[in-house]
């Protein structure tokens, strides 16, 4: 049981892959929702699952490199978590609880959502920039992630239409890429270990 838990914690970062892909697909989801239900809100009602998966994946990534993280990376991690929580809370408040129907002008859920996006992008950049020093996450996974986070920061700051939608997609792709790099690295490590083990056995024979 403990081994299973340790395995899940170690590979929890992989959840960034589905989370990031769902995020990247959201402009398409909005279009489909608008087409099928004449409102994008049907999609937004399920959107929270994307940031939730990313959040769980991020926790997995952080656990993977726990003990090796510096102050800045910890700050990046917590800012990102805060942003994700704000996005989830804003989405649920806006589309499930209807908070803004009661506070139409102050629109707390909407503002939480939008502010959360910015916090998320800033945190992601910080997390991505500081993580390579620790070595737990592959650099080739982190660099596109940082670029994607920068794209996110631009697209979250204001509505940029189709261009913004592409930047939004790249933000999601960045997270998926980061998770994927973890899988690739894990698989490569596994193969190297197996080869080394086989080589060792051969020597003994």
């Amino acid at each position, binding site marked *: 049981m403990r081994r299973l838990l340790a395995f899940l914690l170690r590979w929890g970062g992989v959840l960034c892959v589905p989370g990031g892909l769902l995020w990247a697909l*959201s*402009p*398409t989801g*909005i*279009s489909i929702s*608008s087409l099928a239900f004449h409102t*994008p809100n049907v999609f*937004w009602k399920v959107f929270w699952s994307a940031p939730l998966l990313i959040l769980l994946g991020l926790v997995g990534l952080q656990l993977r490199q726990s003990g*090796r993280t510096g102050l800045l990376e910890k700050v990046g991690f917590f800012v990102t978590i805060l942003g994700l929580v704000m996005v989830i809370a*804003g*989405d649920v408040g*806006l589309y499930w609880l209807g908070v*803004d*129907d*009661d*506070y*139409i*002008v*102050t*629109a707390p*859920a*909407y*503002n939480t*959502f*939008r502010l959360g996006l910015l916090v998320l992008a800033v945190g992601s950049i910080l997390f991505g920039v500081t993580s*390579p*020093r*620790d*070595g737990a996450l*592959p*650099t*080739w996974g982190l*660099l*596109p992630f940082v*670029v*994607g986070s920068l*794209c996110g920061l631009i*697209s*979250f700051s204001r*509505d940029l*239409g*189709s*261009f*913004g*939608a*592409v930047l*939004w*997609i*790249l933000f999601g*792709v960045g997270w998926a*890429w980061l998770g994927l790099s973890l899988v690739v690295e894990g698989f490569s490590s596994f193969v190297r270990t197996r080869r080394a083990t086989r080589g060792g056995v051969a020597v003994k024979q």
Partner: protein
Amino acid sequence: MKERTLTRRDFLKVAGAGAAGATMLGAAGCGSLANSFTQVPEEYLPSGGSRMNVIVVIIDSLRRDHLGVYGNDWIKTPNLDALAGESLRFDRSYPESLPTILARRAIHTGIRTFPFRDWQKWYDEDVNLWGWQPIPRGQVTLAEILLGEGFYNLMVTDTLHQFRPFYDMHRGFHAFDFIRGQERDLFRPQSPASEKKMENTLIGGPSAAHSEEIMHQYYANTVGRRTEEDWFAPQVFTKAAEYLEMAKESQPFFMFVDNYDPHEPWDPPQKYVDLYSDGYDGPEPVTSSSGPSDWLTERQLERMHARYSAEVTMTDHWLGHFLDKAQGLGLLDNTMLILLSDHGHAFGEHGYAGKVAGALYPELTDTIFFMRHPGGKGADQTSDHYASTHDVAPTILGAMGLQPHPQMGGQDLSVVLDGKEPGRRPHFTAGYHDHVWTRDEKYAMFSLYNGSDPHLFDLENDPKMDKNIASSNPDVVKKMFDEYIIKDAGGPLPHY
């Protein structure tokens, strides 16, 4: 700590990612190559935020009992009745003070104008009624507050008193349109053509000279009208409808539509007059000459009332045009609308015609107050809470979750939409020049500012206030004056 360097393999992976991203950006057009955008959705951010707009419509001089929704079965007000059905209606709405400018001051600021302390007549030619003056500089208006909240503020009005010198009731508005020419607005010089129209106008009564002065100017202002669109209510609501198109592009917006009709003079297009009167061939009673109505024959009084009713229907028609426009633009789905009147008008009901300060009967004091929420809250419901002009501003702010300005003394009536009660008002008070008025559940009373010449009425048995019972109930009169009027005024009333 283990140092990692970028290997050749890492570089190739990153370069691959960069190429993929660049391809997507390129597909999006990324600037001038915009034609390829069609493959990429345009929408990606959640919609929401501050989306509720506000429209306030004032209909001057509209009596409560002249609407179908309040049981009137002979005046045609289909649009007002329909709006009433979509709104929360306050069946006990009264102006905290009257007439025109005093009500506007309260609506704009949320501050009671009564008891008219520190009244300063602004200039010699100004209206000589206690409390009739511009909004004092130290008072903040609703438009100014909404301006600070990012609203786009628009105002359309033909209520001439608001754009007399120094009145600046348009402060805080981004754009405003004063429809010129109502009543005695100094808009156009008099001419032989306008003077000729005086020949068929009934002038007389206690305020004959004043009425004559008004009509001279009014006819000068309205020479050359041809189609119905040239009348004032049509102009106001047509301009307001035009403003809606601009406002739609600048949401959230606050629109203030202040319509002077059916205030006298009553000269609507003949087709409206014919709805309520025919066979009349005397001089037309287009003004009431405020005071006792005994100078008018019964036929003249009927004709005057018919002309007023005709303007009510004309106003209703053009209000409908405005509401249809709002509906067509989809604005009623995210706009809160408050519609109210500022006072009524007497047509001989208690021996008076016009707006007489010493005749504070229901025909003058009873107003309408509708609140339409875009979400349908409170639709077709009624409240017997005393609602008034100074409640408008705090109600609008409250509906948006904003705190009323500390200066505001009115109540946030938006809580009624959620089935809650605003602060308890066991009685209500109002002032008009040198007279005061009050009511509670059982009685209504009005008197001079010092309590003399009281009139008391038993509302349970005499809702139209026909029988003065003050002399047989001095204790009730004293209680209502001391505990309601003096208390609400914060001490003895000023006089000028």
